[in-house]
């Protein structure tokens, strides 16, 4: 009893300090749509390490710089040599820089969803007005936006540089617009794939490894097969094989409809007929990723 006396005074002291009056909140409650927007902006900022520790800013910011640097160099060269055209198409830029994009998505997709799973924060979201669909949409939209910023920023650098170098305005604007459409598709596709893979595991490390593996192995396999097919059979099967990896899928869509020169072996991308299949597969994958995420989070719940 005697031993408990000193500790017994502690709650009393704290009560005195705490007790500065509780104020009720009678201001506005902005509901679901606002909560979804808040989650979106928080996740988008988080994808660049903003609002998080200094350590988590390093990688995304570094990748952003690495992504934009070649564009700046290209512009500098174009201005210095007074070239008639940029040495690299807008639509090709993301394809050339795919390694950086893969790294970014591998690092940030698990950051966005695996943490909530691992630290079991998900139930806190779902005990609030937002529902599964709101969470999935906010996360998907934020990661796609983050990727779009990463891939569109160098295109903007190229475009501004091209205008400064007094290249043909109409030509450049058209190329820039086509480039934006292609990176928008790429952002949606990569964000979807990254999130689906990352949402399966609460372990960030596994998520990173799995995303990199899926992106690089599929690209490696597809480009090897394409090279073999190009030598052995002819360009027909080359185009169809390209359907099986995300980056060649985007390449195919851009070269079929967005005036890009394909990176496929032989430099011949899919024609319009095959191109339609590419677009369908791309949109199907994006929708499929969304559907899978919804299913996944229906289960996680509380």
């Amino acid at each position, binding site marked *: 009893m005697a031993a408990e006396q000193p500790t017994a005074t*502690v709650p009393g002291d704290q009560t005195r300090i705490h007790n500065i009056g509780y104020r009720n909140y009678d201001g506005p409650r902005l509901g679901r749509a606002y909560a979804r927007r808040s989650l979106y902006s928080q996740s988008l900022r988080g994808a660049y390490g903003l609002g998080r520790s200094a350590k988590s800013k390093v990688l995304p910011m570094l990748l952003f710089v690495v992504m934009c640097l070649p564009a700046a160099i290209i512009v500098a060269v174009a201005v210095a040599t007074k070239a008639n055209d940029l040495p690299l198409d807008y639509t090709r830029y993301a394809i050339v820089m795919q390694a950086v994009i893969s790294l970014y998505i591998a690092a940030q997709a698990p950051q966005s969803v695996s943490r909530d799973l691992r*630290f079991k924060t998900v139930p806190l979201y779902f*005990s609030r007005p937002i529902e599964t669909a709101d969470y999935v949409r906010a996360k998907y939209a934020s990661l796609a936006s983050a990727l779009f910023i990463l891939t569109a920023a160098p295109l903007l650098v190229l475009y501004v540089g091209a205008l400064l170098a007094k290249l043909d305005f109409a030509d450049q604007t058209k190329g820039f617009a086509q480039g934006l459409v292609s990176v928008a598709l790429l952002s949606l596709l990569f964000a979807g794939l990254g999130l689906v893979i990352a949402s399966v595991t609460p372990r960030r490390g596994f998520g990173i490894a799995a995303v990199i593996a899926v992106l690089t192995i599929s690209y490696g396999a597809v480009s090897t097969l394409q090279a073999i097919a190009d030598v052995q059979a002819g360009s027909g099967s080359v185009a169809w094989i390209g359907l099986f990896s995300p980056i060649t899928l985007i390449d195919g869509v851009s070269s079929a409809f967005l005036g890009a020169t394909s990176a496929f072996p032989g430099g011949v991308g899919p024609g319009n007929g095959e191109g339609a299949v590419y677009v369908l597969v791309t949109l199907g994958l994006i929708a499929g990723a969304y559907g899978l995420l919804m299913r996944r989070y229906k289960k996680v719940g509380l």
Partner: protein
Amino acid sequence: MIATESLSKRFPRVTALDRLSVDIGPGVTGLVGANGAGKSTLIKILLGLSPATEGRAEVLGLDVATKGADIRERVGYMPEHDCLPPDVSATEFVVHMARMSGLPPTAARERTADTLRHVGLYEERYRPIGGYSTGMKQRVKLAQALVHDPQLVFLDEPTNGLDPVGRDEMLGLIRRIHTDFGISVLVTSHLLGELERTCDHVVVVDGGKLLRSSSTTDFTQTTTTLAIEVTDTDEHPDGTRAVREALDARGVAVQDGSGLPGAGHVLLLTATGEETYDLVRDVIAGLGLGLVRMEQRRHHISEVFTNSDAERKEAVGHGS
């Protein structure tokens, strides 16, 4: 506040809730049950996150099946498990959660500062949560449940993993949520004893069935057990026995505290009210013994079952 009507939840293999009908008013209500008794399932249904197999439930007058989002806007929830990311500070985390509840940015920041102070987190709230003690983490969890000033808050095992002092502080805080903040509380625990001291009303569930629902005063009247321990003196070499005989003589049933720490020196007796404490004091003083301790024993949930069995027998005995 909460009303359920033959609420059932069946999973393919288990029945988590079995025709549970209970009516819970404002104030602090304890929901007691062993692990797996259906407490968490009930909270999930009340938050509108899991549909009931049959029956209906209302929270704050809103039907859980159709008004889930409205309920969740006015209710707070503190889960049993860890739910805090270690790499952000308590302030950032609670602000984010406040916005998730629909509070505008400025209000979210103000309410976060207020709420963290009310639960007892001061300078440390700017440090990453990863470095917090269990007690501090529990406070952050509590703060995120209160930050949007709900009308009702569900606390799932808030004292889990806390040391005795932390437990008492948490229970005091829960009490204040109602008395000072005006927020009604539904708190779950598998320890009846700690809820007795905090709650106005206690609901006991077991195997998804309602075992008992009554105000806490009813509980304490029937279940308070006192443990006493006395010193020996030259006059009474076995003080424990002397007290026992003296109390027996006055008609107070005393049992050995076998199975307790200090068995052989501890006596257990049932307190029927304030006068029992006085009687014990007088008896011990009369014998000239020293009172080492006299404390209310904390009950475990199983004692409710044995007690209710005993009462039933007693009632039958009176009837015949």
